[in-house]
């Protein structure tokens, strides 16, 4: 969280004395956290594809995509306090742009992802520009309407299927070519690894934002807009910045999605999915980057599991409904925040049981003596 870059050129005498309390900050937990992340990442990249069937590898690719979507929405909801119900439309715009570029040009995949992200960023920001004066329920409603509008436009425009012109759609095509994947990641497990790496880059991008100037500005805006203005923060510009970042990340997710599924259809992006996305983000925890991972798992792995077990996906709607109510009442900061705390509590409880096996006997005897 600290600005470490500006320390070297501060005046020597007082500065070193002043700096010392900051240097005493514990470095241990950060190190442990970094090691845990690296180990986890290595396992996900190399262990998971070996352990899982192709069915679940595909599901995990979707988890990576939706973790990015949740990450973007987490920036809006968790950092700045902007409720958006239009994220699925943003995802669709990203997927559309990537598909158009992949069919129309021979550019390398990472470049296409970057461009799709930028196109989505511009469109998302422009679309939300007038809505930024609104907050809460009204903003949510407007974004839901925008998502609906985008769905309608996509239904007429269609997704590119190798045709010419702006839309890249040819309705008379008999053989529809699949959307290509990067040449280094054509198989499903390889594309899964590719998606995870893309997601890691996006998470790093957001993490950097949160730990530096924009992150502090967002925190101030979420606390109180007048107070942020009084601190010299251009609240409109920083809100736009958050929207731009969220749209960029979601656009890249859309590009990743395009390669994952090979064929895109307008009905892949129904407006109501946005509500599910918001629900899983709230359940996972909008204030925590891990919450986005949890949200991705809830959104894509859970349905895959249920389908494999032969349980109807309609149960999911009920499950998410109960889940949101449950999480908002008992753990308002989400599962990613609550789970470690619960584990720590459980750990303390178990440790207590192991260390002091007879604590119950003590109050009984003292209780008997006092009267």
């Amino acid at each position, binding site marked *: *969280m*600290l600005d470490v870059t*500006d320390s070297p050129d501060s005046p020597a005498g007082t500065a070193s004395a002043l*700096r010392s309390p*900051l240097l005493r900050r514990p470095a241990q937990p950060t190190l442990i956290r970094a090691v845990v992340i690296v180990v986890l990442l290595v396992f996900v990249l190399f262990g998971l594809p070996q352990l899982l069937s192709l069915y679940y590898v595909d599901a995990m690719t979707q988890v990576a995509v939706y973790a990015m979507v949740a990450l973007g929405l987490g920036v809006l909801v968790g950092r700045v306090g902007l409720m958006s119900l239009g994220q699925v439309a943003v995802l669709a715009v990203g997927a559309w742009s990537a598909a158009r570029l992949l069919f129309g040009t021979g550019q390398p995949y990472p470049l296409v992802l970057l461009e799709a992200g930028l196109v989505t960023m511009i469109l998302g920001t422009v679309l939300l520009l007038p809505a930024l004066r609104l907050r809460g329920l009204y903003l949510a409603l407007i974004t839901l309407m925008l998502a609906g509008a985008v769905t309608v436009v996509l239904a007429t425009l269609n997704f590119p299927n190798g045709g010419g012109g702006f839309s890249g759609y040819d309705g008379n095509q008999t053989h529809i070519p699949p959307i290509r994947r990067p040449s280094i990641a054509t198989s499903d497990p390889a594309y899964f690894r590719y998606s995870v790496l893309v997601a890691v880059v996006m998470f790093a991008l957001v993490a950097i934002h949160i730990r530096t100037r924009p992150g502090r*500005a967002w925190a101030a805006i979420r606390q109180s807009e*007048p107070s942020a203005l*009084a601190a*010299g923060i251009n609240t409109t510009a920083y809100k736009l910045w958050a929207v731009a970042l969220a749209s960029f990340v979601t656009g890249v997710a859309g590009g990743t999605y395009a390669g994952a599924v090979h064929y895109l259809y307008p009905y892949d992006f129904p407006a109501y999915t946005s509500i599910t996305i918001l629900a899983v983000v709230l359940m996972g925890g909008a204030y925590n980057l891990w919450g986005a991972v949890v949200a991705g798992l809830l959104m894509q792995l859970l349905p895959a599991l249920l389908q494999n077990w032969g349980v109807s996906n309609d149960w999911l709607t009920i499950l998410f409904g109960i889940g949101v109510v449950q999480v908002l009442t008992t753990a308002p900061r989400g599962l990613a925040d609550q789970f470690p705390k619960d584990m720590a509590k459980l750990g303390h409880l178990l440790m207590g049981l192991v260390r002091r096996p007879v604590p119950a006997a003590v109050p009984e005897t003292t209780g008997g003596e006092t009267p």
Partner: protein
Amino acid sequence: MIEVSGLTVKFGGVTSLDNMSVTFEAGTCGLIGPNGAGKTTFFNVLSGFVRPSAGSVRAFGDDLLSIVHFRRARWGVRRTFQTEQAIEELSVYDNVALVHEHAGQPRASRRTDVLDAISFVGLDVDPAGLVGTLGAGQRRLVEVARAVVGRPRLVLLDEPAAGLPDAETESLAEVIRQIPARTGALTILVDHDMSLVSGCCETTAVLDFGELIASGPTAQVLRDERVVRAYLGTAEVA
């Protein structure tokens, strides 16, 4: 020097400030009056949250009202709020540093300036600790640190002692007294605690129903008959 002339603020049919003209010279100036007298409205005009229907404010020769609200921190306006607004999820350091970085202060001096401000207000905590873990009194001090960091020219303190126990008010008063000498800023203090106001402010202005009813040296103002009748109630003054 802040010269306010003919300042009028109307919310619908309510006149919150009525043709207020007053000059705040230098040092720490008090602004007192009963609830609803327009003190916070006056601060909100200076912060740019409220647009007056008439009047002007010249601050050190600049037309303050022509500056866009978020640029006023850069100019040098700093303030605290009646309800404390320190950001819980950020560290003490980041809370203060964000004002420094958004008020256009040089990056090179950020660390020293921020730590300086934290120690100036007498906040004896780990700067890397989260504000969410601090008590109410310490959060007030974080807010004051935010108001004095960098180069403030006009510091507005809106009831900084509200809800604080006497001992903490005492040490806060000590900090407030030192602000002008340390930063060179003009400080305007709004509070209901008369001992705090008379202990900190050389001059004091009194508002009642949006009207300025007195201004001048604090001791003299607190003896003024109109002030006693409108605000203090009895002649008993600390």
